[in-house]
């Protein structure tokens, strides 16, 4: 006999709040880059770029992942979420911290505002991780998805702790190494340890579910897990003690092999799928995987230019960062939001009516044409921004950023359509 987990009423508000604030951060991100496009071509340690990157990584990426995790952890870990109150406390601390940190970065005031912001963020992240750890502890059967999620949370805490140390180091220098050296460690713990680790774990469970795949090469996930962790640990140790050097190529190859195993797993899921129709959210997801693979191809060039002392290392790092945050992570969220949010809204509005009368399906809660436009704007953005960055064309970059803003506007409009969905009066109310 199986136990059935019902959607608690508090879950809806918690998840919706995360998605909504994340969408606002996405719009803010689009506006910030649109009006400071020149910073995309400058050095990555520019204050405005730090504000933009943290809006993307924390406000847009991490917040939506937190929201999705509250909804999906019970599915992936096959147990109930430990605490919704902890989720709300984490959310409040995180949002306050995000606003303080981003504002402080934008005007570059490394004082109390930046320090308090970083501590609020660390507290929010710690509470989210605690909630995840306790939830995972209740799991009877250990599985690889759980390993990915737990390890991702550990990397996230490590990223945040190093971030806080760097913030305090601005006013009270105590770190032994160059600040840029720590920035590389901080960025890769966040990108590889948090985002990549979590996305591999969650997608490995959800993609075969959505596609109804008959073949799942689970051993590939184990290889991917160990290779990625080995790459991250080696990168941290080697870069801390020796900086970027020839060994970094080998470490990048390990990370690349990890991604190849994961993508091979996804490929077999896709190849053996019973559901043949590929909808726009899945196209967005597949595009995001392609963007990640492309971003990783840039890494050897960054290492090469950096070792050669070539200023192109800055340009290639910008391209890499843009591909990661505005490409890979954005595309994934732009797709997967429509595979998660409509369901929680549908359960709230229609669960009591199912089986009695014909009701709309979750996919009917958003406008499919708007979603197609979102995909088109996003593709045009990608083409323009990458060709603009490669050929150093401000017109192409600006056109791309306008399309990025349009993507954000269409996305938030569709999200609001789901959030404020009102069932037809013929269905009655709960």
């Amino acid at each position: 006999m199986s136990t059935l987990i019902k959607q608690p009423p508090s879950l809806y508000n918690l998840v919706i709040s995360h998605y909504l604030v994340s969408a606002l951060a996405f719009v803010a991100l689009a506006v910030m880059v649109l009006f400071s496009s020149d910073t995309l071509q400058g050095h990555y340690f520019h204050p405005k770029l730090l504000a933009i990157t943290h809006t993307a990584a924390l406000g847009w990426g991490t917040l939506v992942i937190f929201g999705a995790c509250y909804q999906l952890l019970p599915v992936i870990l096959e147990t109930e979420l430990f605490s919704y109150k902890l989720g709300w406390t984490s959310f409040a601390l995180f949002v306050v911290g995000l606003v303080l940190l981003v504002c402080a970065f934008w005007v570059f005031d490394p004082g109390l505002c930046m320090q308090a912001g970083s501590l609020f963020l660390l507290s929010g992240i710690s509470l989210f991780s605690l909630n995840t750890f306790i939830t995972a502890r209740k799991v009877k059967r250990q599985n690889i998805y759980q390993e990915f999620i737990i390890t991702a949370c550990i990397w996230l805490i490590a990223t945040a702790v190093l971030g806080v140390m760097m913030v305090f180091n601005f006013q009270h220098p105590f770190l032994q190494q160059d600040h840029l050296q720590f920035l590389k460690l901080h960025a890769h713990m966040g990108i590889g340890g948090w985002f990549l680790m979590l996305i591999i774990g969650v997608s490995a469970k959800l993609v075969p579910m959505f596609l109804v795949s008959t073949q799942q090469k689970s051993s590939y996930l184990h290889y991917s897990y160990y290779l990625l962790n080995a790459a991250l640990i080696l990168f941290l140790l080697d870069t801390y003690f020796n900086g970027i050097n020839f060994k970094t190529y080998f470490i990048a190859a390990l990370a690349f092999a990890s991604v190849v195993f994961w993508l091979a797993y996804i490929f077999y899921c896709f190849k053996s799928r019973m559901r043949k129709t590929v909808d726009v959210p899945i196209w967005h997801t597949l595009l995001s995987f392609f963007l990640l693979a492309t971003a990783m191809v840039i890494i050897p060039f960054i290492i090469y230019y950096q070792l050669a002392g070539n200023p192109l290392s800055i340009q290639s790092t910008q391209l890499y960062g843009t591909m990661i945050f505005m490409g890979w992570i954005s595309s994934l969220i732009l797709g997967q939001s429509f595979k998660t949010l409509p369901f929680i809204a549908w359960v709230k509005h229609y669960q009591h009516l199912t089986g009695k009368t014909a009701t709309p399906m979750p996919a009917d809660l958003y406008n499919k044409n708007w979603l197609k436009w979102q995909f088109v704007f996003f593709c045009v953005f990608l083409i323009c921004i990458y060709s603009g960055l490669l050929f150093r064309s401000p017109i192409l970059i600006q056109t791309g950023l306008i399309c990025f803003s349009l993507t954000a506007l269409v996305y938030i409009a569709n999200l609001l359509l789901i959030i404020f969905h009102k069932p037809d009066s013929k269905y009655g109310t709960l």
Partner: protein
Amino acid sequence: MEPFDITDKQSFQKMEILETLRLVIDPELEINIVDMGLIYSVTLKGEGKIISIEMTLSSPNCPMGASIVGAVQNCLEHYFPHYKTEVQLVCEPAWSSDLITDEGKRLLER
């Protein structure tokens, strides 16, 4: 699902119940739960006055699980108002794509 047994006088009624359950749609895949292979058995108990359904979900702790089970209950209460209904959710044997019927496969390929 157990095969249709012409010697069992309840077989026609069970088939009618099963056909009615085709009205319950999986919200994600948008195909009915019978062709998805989620219904393991339909039994008539208590002198034929209790409809007992044994079913599973495509994934344990499926986020739509409560909706699907609720939908089965709603559907039976609505179309068979003179019967009591019991829905038993089981996780063994676990659902696999092999349980999808040919019609289900055709619907998924649309």
